[in-house]
Every structure is written in structure tokens, then in C-alpha cells.
């Protein structure tokens, strides 16, 4: 900002942003919720790594880990984590067509196609994980 310009407007009014600005609009709230649920994404990645370590450490370690997974509070926590993950994933996938603009010749691939592609990839990845777990 040009300081010389400011001199001629010595009494500008600048509104302060309230701490709870994200309650102003549903869209802001959804945004904050999406950002916060990324914590759960990080948690589930760590969980997966711990699980892999247990697998690597042998059947005894895996049994201990599985027993922990079956504890009631842990199951309850993981239901919450799953819901948060689903919310995060769905809201995130729905933003994908914004960033990815694919042109096929003259025409732009419609947003729905890009979105479906992402859902397809998600399904395929989940299928792969299920298949690996079955092995």
C-alpha cells in the first residue's frame, strides 16, 4: 500500500475479523470441517503403518494389535474416524473437477466424468486393499 495515499485517508475504517468467522456461512463451516477432518486422515495413515509394523513383527504382535482394535472404545473411536474420513474424502473429491480440466480435442471433458473417474479410482484402490488383506 502506498503510504502517501494513506496520508489522505487518516480515518479509514478497517473491520476486525471475528474469531468465529466460520459460523458466518454454511460454506465456511463446511470448509473448516473439511480442513479439520484431515487430522483423521493423518491418524488413519499412522494406524495403517502401525498395523503393517505389527504384521512384520510376527503373529503374536498382530494378535495383540487386533485385540486392541476390538476394544469397545477403540471401535467407537474408529467409527467416528470412518465418518470423518468419508466426509473428508467426498468433499475433497467433489472439488477435483475444479482443478482438473481435461480437453479432448475441442471439447472439455464434463465435470461429472472427472468426478466419476475419481470415484472409480477410489473404488479400485479400496478393492486392491481388500484383495491384499484377503491374501
Amino acid at each position: 500500500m502506498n503510504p502517501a495515499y494513506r496520508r489522505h485517508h487518516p480515518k479509514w475504517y478497517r473491520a476486525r475479523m471475528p474469531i468465529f468467522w466460520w459460523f458466518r456461512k454454511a460454506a465456511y463451516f463446511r470448509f473448516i470441517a473439511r480442513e479439520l477432518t484431515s487430522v483423521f486422515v493423518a491418524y488413519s495413515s499412522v494406524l495403517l503403518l502401525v498395523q503393517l509394523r505389527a504384521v512384520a513383527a510376527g503373529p503374536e504382535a498382530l494378535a495383540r494389535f487386533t485385540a486392541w482394535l476390538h476394544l469397545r472404545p477403540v471401535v467407537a473411536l474408529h467409527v467416528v474416524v470412518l465418518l470423518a474420513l468419508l466426509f473428508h474424502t467426498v468433499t475433497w473429491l467433489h472439488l477435483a473437477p475444479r482443478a482438473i480440466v481435461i480437453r479432448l480435442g475441442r471439447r472439455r471433458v464434463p465435470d461429472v466424468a472427472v468426478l466419476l473417474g475419481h470415484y472409480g479410482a477410489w473404488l479400485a484402490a479400496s478393492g486392491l486393499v481388500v484383495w491384499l488383506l484377503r491374501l
Partner: protein
Amino acid sequence: MPQTVTIEIRRYRPEEEAEPTWQRYEVPFWREWMVLDALNYIKDHVDGTLSFRWSCRMGVCGSCGMMVNGNPALTCATYLETLVPGPVQVEPLRGFPVIRDLVCDLTDFITKLQRVQPWIVRETEGTPAQGEYRQTPDELAAYRPYAMCINCLLCYAACPIYELEPGFLGPAVIALAQRYNLDSRDQGREARMDVLSEHDGIWACTLVGECSTVCPKHVDPAGAIQRYKLDAAVAWVKALVLPRSGR
């Protein structure tokens, strides 16, 4: 249908008050009136001291943007009828310093806009004798949506990031940079990337997405920013994997 409607206006008279205050006005209600018509009625018949900007009355000049009932809107394109029974609250655009009543200082936007060189940049300028820079309709279509921007700054007023981080270049500046980047006649992409990839450029955007929702010209600045992020990331990976190939 009501005979009159109450308009509440956030007024700020720097020589009289330290903080803005609300003032209520009663105006006649006409079905064909826009919010701007009500403001002009007040200015002409009730209170000549009310200050606000407008020019074209037809959604083209981009100067009549204000907060109407808390949402950024072009007042010349917002029917009063959609807001009755009221009261209708009108405030200056959020995120900008207020000079007086509904008039904001937009210098910050203009300064940032100039930084991304929103014009066609050529490495070497051709002479008039060499003719125009030709462009096909397909090449035009690639950037046309971004060229629709009227600088109304509703997208800034909708962006909480701009309010939280005043250094952020903001939606319209990035969309307009992209407008020139995608222009087949332009060669300024790299120079703009230096500005856009700064901390206050594209990476400050966390994709709230409200800029695109409020844009009256369907510019989709949020999309422009995300596309730009993707481009920048791909360029970075390419430079990492194939350092010699250049971009």
C-alpha cells in the same frame, strides 16, 4: 406486496464517528427495483449525504458491489423483490478499508493486479507491418471465461483468506493472470509464475470456493487457482525428474 421496504445501511462518516453505525431508511417498494435503485432513491429524496459507487446499472462496470444481507452482490443486479419483507441490510464490501459509507479503498487490489502483468507479454514485439497475432476460436475459448471478469471484487469480499491474510493476491488477480497465461498470443507465463508462486500467491488459497459461488460473471477464480496449483506442481516434478528438459 409491501408498499415500502426498510433499508438498513452501514454508514461511516470519518469526520463524525470512529466506528460505522447503522442507519434505517424507508423507501417505496417497486417490483422492478434493484437494491441500487433504492440506494439512489435515498440519495435523491431522503439523504443526500449517503455515499456509494455505481455507474452502468447493468452489471458491466463492476463498481456497485456491496454486502447485501451479508452476501457480496452487485446491487444493480439484485432485485429488491427477492429480499422483501426486509429489512434489507447493505454494507460496504468486506475485507477492504472503508473510506466513507459504502465506499471502499481498492488500491490494494489494483497494486496486486499490476504485479501479475495482466496484459499480453511478448519476448520480442512484432512490428505493425508483420500483422496481428492471430488466434483461432478454440484458442480464444481456452481463456475466454477468465476474460469475463469485471473487477467487481465480490470474490474478495467472499474470501475469508483475503481477510485473514491481507497479503494474499486474491481470486480475481490470479484468475486474470491465468487469463493471460492461457492466451495463445502471450509469452509472459514464466514471469507471472514468479509472482504467483510466492507465499502470498496461489499457495495461500485453501480452496474455500466461495469466490466462484458469488462471481456474477461465472469466472470461477477458485478453479483458476487450483488449475494453476496443478500446473505449478507438475512443472516442479518435471524439473525434479528431468532437470535438463526445461519447462
